[in-house]
């Protein structure tokens, strides 16, 4: 029962956090899909299935928060690079600000043992 509650809660939390982390990962740089996945892999418990990152990237592109460029690669299939759009930069500032406030507030509620 506890495990199920925790799983539901962490799934909800992860959904929003993944978008924030993806946008932060490509802020000020350009990365292709696999590189983004590799960076997010390093964050414990954030990426349960790596395949979830790509649909989020597609949605962010459709909503105009990220832009893509495709470049041919000698090593394999063409690579799709992701960069933050102007609109994406704007939303990222707001998301980071919101997250910082929430984290500070939530940490403030914790009592020292």
């Amino acid at each position, binding site marked *: 029962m506890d495990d199920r509650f925790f799983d539901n809660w962490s799934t909800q939390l992860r959904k929003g956090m993944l978008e924030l982390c993806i946008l932060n990962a490509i802020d000020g740089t350009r990365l292709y899909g*696999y590189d983004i996945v590799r960076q997010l892999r390093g964050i414990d418990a954030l990426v349960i*299935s790596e*395949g979830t990152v*790509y*649909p989020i990237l*597609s*949605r962010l592109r459709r909503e105009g928060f990220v832009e893509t460029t495709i470049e041919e690669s000698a*090593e394999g299939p063409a690579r799709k690079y992701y960069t933050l759009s102007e609109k994406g930069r704007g939303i990222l500032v707001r998301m980071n600000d919101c997250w910082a406030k929430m984290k500070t507030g939530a940490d403030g509620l914790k009592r020292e043992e």
Partner: protein
Amino acid sequence: MVELSETARKGLDDYLRQVRTYLRWSRSLDRDEVEQNIAAHIERELEGTPQPVSSSALEGVLARLGSPRQWVPPEALGWWGKLILKLRTDSEDWRLAYISFALLLAGFLLFLASPLLLVFIAASFITSRAALAAAGDENLGAQKWLLYPALVIGSAILATAVLCGPGLLAGTAGAELYQLARMRHYSDMDIVEFVIISATLITGLWWVVSGLTLCKRPALARGPLRPFADRFNRHHALALFSTGVLLLILLAGYIASLW
């Protein structure tokens, strides 16, 4: 390009086939883009792996990528796609719930004024009962919304048929008998009166007999009318018996008043 062994190639084809199945239900996602993302990811993951890549190495990559279904997030599916995917992939008890509701809906939409409606209701009722048995009352959760319409309608029809069926049949038979009696000049009674007397007599007798039977075995009512008759007990059976006796007394009084 990474070279895959034959079994690894089959594993990848199977994964892509499943992804395509899910993509079919989404209008907003670009199939080619999804497949390119998968191909590019696998290519990068398997760089440096001894070639041809074994199926176990590929399985590890696919396991980290996750289920083929996640490539089509719920928000990318239309309501029809969500319904179809639930039917195709959810646990057996949820599938039964959807089938039950679909049968009931189809019956009302397509055969409202036709006897076929009863066939659809019966099929939906049986499917709901199967789902109820598979999941158990306490584990039904939101399935109730799909199962209860068929259960309520089916139980109401069943209870009405069992309680009033013999009386209705007796009324019909009474009408036939009346015509026969009239032809032979045996009766001066009004047909409506004759039919009502026949129906009341058989209904009263039936309720007395079934009330007595259910007094001894209340589970006979609980089973077919689950979950609505779960609390049916001897007191309810006794009430049915008493109502039957009361009907017969009233009928006897009425018949006596005719003479």
